[in-house]
């Protein structure tokens, strides 16, 4: 097996065991990026000189008998809304690409580097994280490694496609309405959206303060758990809870009505794997999605108001109208949406008295084609760009932890959301690991030719 097909844990184990140098691991990943990223368009900035310095530091520590950390020599990359010292934090935009470079790495990235990781660069995304497709007007679309005619999903499309392509075993992204879970699902990898506030967002470009989360992507639950453990401090995951099948349910209503057969099959596979036989209803989920839609456009619009006044022509045409329209909403909508959010959270808390794990599709369909405008859901033809997050938005609306798991099935990748109560990442990880051990969910580096 090549170095670019190995998990982060395998790589760190080999490096710490002196089986391979951090330098050789890095050069194998750089060679793969140089060979294939021209086709996939994941990277907007490559920091290979920095990575070589960091890999050398790992090798020097090992030679001196010092443990470089649990990510010894593991190549990583981050969505380009994370501060990287020396780079402008462009957040997918034209407006900030020539901004003064960041003086420090984002808090998350600092933790990965302190654990021995080496940084390959920054990754493509939807402009200002406002989208689910990573068809960026300034930097071009990121292509799905499973089928380069298709989108990688978004807004963290470069982060998900990089992991699927074997460019890095771990990357970081952000998720406001589904921007980790949607691309993870479409690229066939694991993605964690943690509980709101659980991972420090310091040094990341904001989108919607009420909903912004950051989290990792990986090709195994163990790698995802390792990254999570490094990125946060109050959950050591040392005790793996048992999953009680009676406390697992499939979400019905909004999350099931009109779901296409492929996605229903994916959810059924996961449900069977966890022994779930019950259906649960998260009341008014469609209204939760609508409220999330309004708040996102409003907060995003407010954030960008000055630039929308002075240089609207510099925005991505897909982003600009939604930010402008969002900023012009009446206050009563936003107050009602935030009040509804409190009500909806209370309903979800009641649901978690009965259940530990809830299951739902991550997306309404497999990866659409690049440039595809509409898709069929529930017999209706609806626009792709705002609707790929139909099933993710109600969940991030109330900050619940979710892992999107890649279901083993024929055809293009499909993801299912494993949803837990706030602060119960341990249960979500335990469910994902159980499914992976049973061979029902899995991810491998895509064989690029």
């Amino acid at each position, binding site marked *: 097996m090549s170095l670019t097909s190995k998990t982060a844990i395998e790589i760190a184990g080999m490096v710490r065991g002196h089986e391979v140098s951090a330098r050789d691991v890095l050069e194998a990943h750089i060679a793969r990026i140089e060979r294939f990223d021209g086709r996939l368009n994941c990277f907007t900035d490559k920091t290979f000189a920095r990575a070589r310095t960091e890999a050398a530091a790992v090798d020097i520590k090992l030679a001196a008998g010092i443990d470089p950390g649990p990510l010894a020599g593991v190549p990583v990359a981050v969505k380009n809304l994370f501060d990287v010292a020396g780079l402008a934090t462009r957040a997918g935009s034209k407006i900030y690409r020539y901004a003064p470079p960041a003086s420090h790495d984002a808090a998350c990235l600092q933790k990965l580097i302190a654990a021995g990781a080496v940084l390959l660069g920054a990754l493509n995304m939807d402009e200002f994280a406002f989208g689910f497709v990573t068809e960026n007007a300034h930097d071009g679309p990121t292509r799905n490694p499973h089928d380069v005619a298709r989108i990688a999903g978004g807004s963290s499309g470069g982060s998900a496609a990089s992991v699927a392509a074997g460019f890095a075993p771990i990357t970081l992204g952000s998720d406001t309405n589904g921007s980790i879970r949607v691309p993870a699902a479409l690229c066939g990898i694991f993605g964690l959206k943690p509980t709101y506030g659980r991972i420090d967002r310091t040094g990341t470009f904001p989108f919607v303060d*009420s909903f912004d989360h950051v989290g990792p992507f990986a090709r195994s639950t163990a790698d995802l758990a390792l990254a999570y453990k490094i990125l946060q401090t109050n959950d050591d995951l040392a005790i793996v809870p048992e999953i009680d099948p009676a406390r697992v349910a499939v979400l019905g209503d909004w999350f099931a009505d009109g779901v296409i057969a492929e996605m229903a099959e994916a959810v059924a596979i996961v449900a069977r794997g966890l022994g779930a036989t019950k259906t649960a209803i998260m009341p*008014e989920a*469609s*209204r939760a999605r*609508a*409220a999330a*839609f*309004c708040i996102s*456009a409003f907060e995003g619009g407010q954030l960008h*108001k000055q630039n*929308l*006044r002075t240089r*609207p*022509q510099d925005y991505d*045409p897909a982003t*600009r*109208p*939604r930010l*402008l*329209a*969002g*900023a*012009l*909403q*009446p206050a*009563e*909508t936003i*107050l*009602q*949406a*935030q*009040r*509804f*959010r*409190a*009500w909806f*959270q209370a309903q979800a808390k009641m649901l978690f008295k009965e259940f530990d794990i809830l299951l739902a599709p991550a997306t309404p369909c497999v990866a659409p084609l690049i440039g595809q405008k509409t898709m069929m859901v529930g017999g209706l033809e609806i626009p792709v760009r*705002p609707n790929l997050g139909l099933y993710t938005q109600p969940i991030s609306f109330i900050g619940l932890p979710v892992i999107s798991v890649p279901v083993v099935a024929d055809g293009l990748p499909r993801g299912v959301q494993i949803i837990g109560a706030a602060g119960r990442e341990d249960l979500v990880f335990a469910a994902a690991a159980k499914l992976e051990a049973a061979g029902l969910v899995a991810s491998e580096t895509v064989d690029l030719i």
Partner: protein
Amino acid sequence: MRQDDIAAYLNAASQFLDLPIHPEHYEDVLTAFAVICSHAKHVMEFTLPVEIEAAPRFTP
């Protein structure tokens, strides 16, 4: 809300908030605002108990 009403609100809000919409961008903004209005209607027509407070809370 009728399309004419949406346009009238959008024009007034744009002027009042000093957030101009370039003529080239206007149709796209109007379309986006109509989509937001449909979501907002769905949210606004839900009757919430009076004791429900907005989700973000100031913590001194």
